[in-house]
């Protein structure tokens, strides 16, 4: 009973939050609504008994991903209203029908093979975190290491891409120094082009 109440409550909240994220024209409303939606999604994981996954969802999404987005939004002009896409309605219709057919195919796919065996069954004696660790560090050890390398590559790429010219602090420089730096950059660019 409580499970049903929690499910319907959090389902309604999540759908409302993500609809706001998709439909609003203000970037700040979108990021706030998405942060709320991520926390509401972790509620489903707790209901489903995946405690570790719910904790990871809160830590990674609202701790890391949202902080990254907020950091990125400092660079962009977020006060301006977002212009919406106005494309050919026929293309939108065809794409919508194709996407709907694909989603239906994905959802009804388990009908074809309904004899699924549990390869790594849930062990009732230990908690969720311990069970996840036991499977993760035996069967899924190689994907775990590959994911670690992928995160390292992403971190280096983020630093290299976003951290350019971050050693120069524009707030601590005088006006003349900034102009000299910009002039130096422009002459450098022109020399590079010719």
């Amino acid at each position: 009973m409580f499970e049903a109440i929690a499910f319907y409550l959090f389902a309604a909240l999540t759908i409302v939050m993500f609809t706001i994220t998709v439909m609003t024209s203000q970037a700040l409303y979108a990021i706030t609504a998405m942060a709320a939606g991520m926390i509401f999604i972790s509620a489903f994981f707790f209901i489903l008994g995946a405690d570790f996954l719910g904790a990871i969802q809160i830590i990674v999404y609202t701790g890391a991903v949202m902080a990254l987005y907020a950091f990125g939004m400092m660079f962009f002009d977020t006060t301006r209203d977002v212009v919406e896409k106005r494309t050919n309605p026929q293309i939108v219709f065809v794409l919508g029908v194709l996407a709907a057919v694909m989603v239906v195919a994905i959802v009804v796919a388990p009908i074809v093979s309904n004899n699924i065996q549990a390869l790594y069954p849930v062990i009732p004696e230990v908690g969720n975190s311990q069970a996840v660790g036991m499977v993760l560090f035996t069967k899924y050890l190689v994907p775990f290491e590959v994911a670690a390398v992928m995160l390292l590559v992403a971190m280096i790429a983020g630093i290299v891409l976003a951290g350019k010219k971050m050693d120069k602090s524009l707030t601590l420089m005088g006006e003349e120094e900034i102009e000299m730096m910009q002039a130096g950059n422009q002459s450098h660019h022109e020399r590079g082009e010719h």
Partner: protein
Amino acid sequence: MEITLSHYLVLSTVLFTIGLIGVMRRKNLLMLFFATEILLNATNIAFAAISHYIGDLSGQLFAFFIIAIAASEVAVGLGLLIVWYKRTGKIDLDQMTSMRG
């Protein structure tokens, strides 16, 4: 009032559809990233629900890997977006058509 696997799959499909609508109607690249996050989270719910109702832990582990992929996507994508914004001052998709084809 039993919550079954179908409830979770329907919810996941609804969230996935919201994300697809976002991908199709957004022009701002930052908003497009938000829509992709919604898509990934919708699949995460489906994975966790199937993992619970079949009694198999693999679904949760796939959800972990999806979260890792989402985090690296955000890091690399935002880095590229900042570089593009510094160069052009815009993050709209329509201004990115540099190849004439």
